[in-house]
């Protein structure tokens, strides 16, 4: 028999268990009975908190999609140069996925399902990078550059794609090649290559910008 928990606490434990199961098996691979068993309550108790599996799934999506990272340390721990702050932000983001790979799993699932949470994932998880890169490059690139707007947008997409793919390889399908790759080095190298691609040839990013977990 499960321990009696106050309502809000019980609700949280249901959301957390559901989040793990949905991340592993997707919406269709999990039943209400599976979740109830995981939390050690009866399905009737679960239905007291959520009217349906869909409602519980939507709650999980929204909760993860609205989780924001604070990049204050990326600004206070290093210089204020475009490259140092970007390196610090990237390290913080990578750490957040290391702590909770389900954030990435559920984001990818919501994308494939065409869920409206995809927009929340972008607004809360990626927009910081998009804004930062687009503002930064807007200030740096020559104004007479051909196709300036699309160049800036492409650079921002390139960064997001590059970081996301590295995270998928590293945390969602551990690959032999990446098993021993150090996260600091990976983060540092991704940012360095990106900077080179957009024409910011700074060979040394302040090591302080790479925040150790």
């Amino acid at each position: 028999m499960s321990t009696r928990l106050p309502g809000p606490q019980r609700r949280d434990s249901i959301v957390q268990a559901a989040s793990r199961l949905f991340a592993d098996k997707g919406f269709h691979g999990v039943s209400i009975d599976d979740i109830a068993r995981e939390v050690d309550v009866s399905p009737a108790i679960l239905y007291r908190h959520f009217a349906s599996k869909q409602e519980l799934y939507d709650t999980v999506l929204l909760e993860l999609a609205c989780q924001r990272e604070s990049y204050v340390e990326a600004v206070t721990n290093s210089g204020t140069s475009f490259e140092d702050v970007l390196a610090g932000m990237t390290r913080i983001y990578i750490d957040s996925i290391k702590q909770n790979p389900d954030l990435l799993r559920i984001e990818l699932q919501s994308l494939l399902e065409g869920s409206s949470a995809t927009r929340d994932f972008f607004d809360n998880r990626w927009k910081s990078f998009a804004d930062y890169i687009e503002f930064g490059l807007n200030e740096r690139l020559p104004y007479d550059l051909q196709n300036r707007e699309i160049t800036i947008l492409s650079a921002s997409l390139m960064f997001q794609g590059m970081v996301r793919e590295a995270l998928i390889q590293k945390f969602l399908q551990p690959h032999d090649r990446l098993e021993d790759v150090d996260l600091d080095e990976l983060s540092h190298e991704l940012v360095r290559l990106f900077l080179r691609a957009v024409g910011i040839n700074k060979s040394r990013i302040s090591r302080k910008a790479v925040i150790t977990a």
Partner: protein
Amino acid sequence: MSDFDSELDASGLNCPLPILRAKKAIAALDNGQTLKIIATDPGSVKDFEAFCKQTGNTLLSSGEEDGKFLFMIQKAA
């Protein structure tokens, strides 16, 4: 709102841009002078609290007005 020496409008910007711009604006102030910041990112409330804690600057006030977040930060002496 009381007097301020410089103003920064960070409306429409997500973390860390408001913080970064504030850090640069504060660097240009003399010790004891005040920066007023306007932001729209709800995360900025916690972010500016953390920023002041980490930098030693004083968060004189933090509030919301017409859907915008207003902060007054005094540069540490």
